[in-house]
């Protein structure tokens, strides 16, 4: 009896070990294949503009005129790049302070109410489909801006405001986690030295969690950079660099979504859209690297 248990005992362990290993291995393999084929697909399509259609990469990055279907075909994507950067960075400038304050409120000021009610509500924002954001932007924000500011209400300002609400959950969640992970000794030390609550938050808490907050903001920018539908509905989509925040302009994503279905795979216009997608992907890589770098600097 005793002998048989001794013999049998190691078996499930080995089996479990192998099941776990094989399962993880398969998952990782699928992930890697999926990511690499995606990168390869976008890159191979996107590079065709330069190799097959003979467009100068510099022209794509710095050209001001976009008319790939015209005679002659023009592939200046700078207005889109400008539009993408300006809307996402402006959105982060709006959402960053809001997210930080929400996090401070939920962790420091009213943890009970904040964590129980406010946090789920803010996280709920992440689950709302982007077409809803776009429609709310088109129905509420655009008419409001049209009444207050010169212009038609559409443009970078409307896009940035819609995006700021969309990226608020990302920034708030990361800031809240960082704040909650802050060693209590830091704050207690500050209080012991006679600092008030606001002095502590401003002088001790904010500088310490700044890298984490910036990580959240960069992830938010990356999210805003890739958002297509909501922005497309409120930005106007003219392929020009606007003269004000309230004039029609375009982003990389909105240019892609507007024309991808209307163009034929393999045509110069379609390839140019893939090049825009390639620029988007490379920018996302840059954002990921910035996040890694910020995480490395984290003081917590």
């Amino acid at each position, binding site marked *: 009896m005793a002998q048989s248990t001794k013999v049998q005992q190691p078996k499930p362990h080995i089996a479990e070990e192998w099941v776990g290993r094989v399962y993880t291995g398969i998952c990782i393999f699928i992930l890697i294949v999926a990511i690499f084929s995606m990168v390869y697909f976008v890159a191979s399509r996107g590079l065709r503009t330069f190799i097959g259609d003979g467009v100068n990469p510099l022209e794509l990055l710095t050209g001001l005129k*976009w*008319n*790939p*279907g*015209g005679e002659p075909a023009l592939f200046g994507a700078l207005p889109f790049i400008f539009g993408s950067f300006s809307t996402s960075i402006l959105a982060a400038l709006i959402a960053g302070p809001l997210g930080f304050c929400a996090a401070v409120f939920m962790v420091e000021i009213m943890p009970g109410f904040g964590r129980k009610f406010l946090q789920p509500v803010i996280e709920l924002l992440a689950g709302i489909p982007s077409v809803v954001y776009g429609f709310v932007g*088109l*129905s509420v924000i*655009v*008419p409001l801006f*049209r009444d207050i500011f010169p212009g*038609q*209400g*559409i443009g970078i300002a409307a896009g940035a405001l819609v995006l700021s609400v969309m990226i608020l959950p990302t920034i708030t969640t990361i800031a809240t986690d960082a704040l909650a992970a802050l060693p209590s000794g830091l704050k207690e030390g500050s209080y012991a030295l006679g600092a008030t609550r606001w002095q502590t938050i401003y002088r001790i808490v904010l500088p310490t969690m700044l890298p984490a907050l910036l990580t959240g903001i960069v992830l938010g920018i990356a999210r805003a950079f890739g958002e297509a539908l909501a922005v*497309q*509905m409120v930005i*106007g*989509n*003219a*392929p*020009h660099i*606007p*003269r004000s925040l309230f*004039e*029609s302009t*375009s982003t990389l994503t909105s240019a892609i*979504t*507007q*024309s*991808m*279905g*209307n*163009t*034929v*795979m*393999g*045509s110069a*216009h*379609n390839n140019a859209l893939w090049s825009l997608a390639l620029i988007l992907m490379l920018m996302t890589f840059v954002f990921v690297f910035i996040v890694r770098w910020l995480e490395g600097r984290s003081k917590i």
Partner: protein
Amino acid sequence: MMALVLTFVLAACGQSNNNGTNNGGNGGNTTNNATQGSGNAGGNAENEGNAGANEGNAASELSGSIIASGSSALQPLVDQASRKFMDENPGVTIQVQGGGSGTGLAQVSEKQVDIGNSDVYAEEKLDADKAAELVDHQVAVVAMAAVVNPEVTVDNLTKQQLIDIFSGNVTNWSEVGGQDQAIQIVNRPSSSGTRATFETYALGMKTEDLQGSIQEDSSGTVRKLVGETPGAIGYLALSYLDDSVKTLQYDGVDATEENVANGTYPIWAYEHMYTNGEPNEVVAAFLEFMMSPDVQEDDVVELGYIPSSLMQIERDQGGNVTEK
């Protein structure tokens, strides 16, 4: 049984030839389709027992699957007709996908789908040799009208006035007989089939995207923006017109179904369903169904398209109009 089905295949092909105006199919594809057809016939034999319930209706013995993709403007019609067709032919499944005219044409050209729906002629999107392989089936006509914000006082625009507005030479409504208000253009993206139709038949020229103009791909968004933005002008398919926007006359002609049918109103386009070579049995039966009074007089009208049968004129790709 086999002979009966094959007779039907031939009959269906013949009929669809009469319906399509462009018979550019090549021989290679026809053989291909014939093999597919006999494959389906084999499948039919197995389903014979079920089909027996609907006796007398040859179409009910069909089985197979059809995938159609392309134009989002044509999608609701094909989708609605396909559901009717599937009710009558339980053995057939039809999937209708959107994606845009370009996607539909590219996919049917590469044989990824059976039918490519398009707002424009294949020749405008595909290379000439690829377009030549496709067979055109014009299932409906869609007409468009220039629309403005309801507060704009202009009722009629001439072709030259529209050209001036959309090319940026005229930027205030007072220059075309309206109140003193800036004109806001609500356009479609340059790749859009709707824009191509409007530029070809209303303006007669291509226009550039102007600084400050708005571009939206979806008709619903265009209508909303034109209806809400002061001084806005855009263009919509007749099925999208309602009280939120004001419809303009073009050169003094109202945008109505009768005026399109008798040829006095020029801003319209055929809705195309392309097949790669001659269609196989099931696809041919479906295309024939699309042209039948069942669909033409019911769904086509209901969804705001104009039935091809109503058209008193014909127009080829070059824009040459002939009496039917």
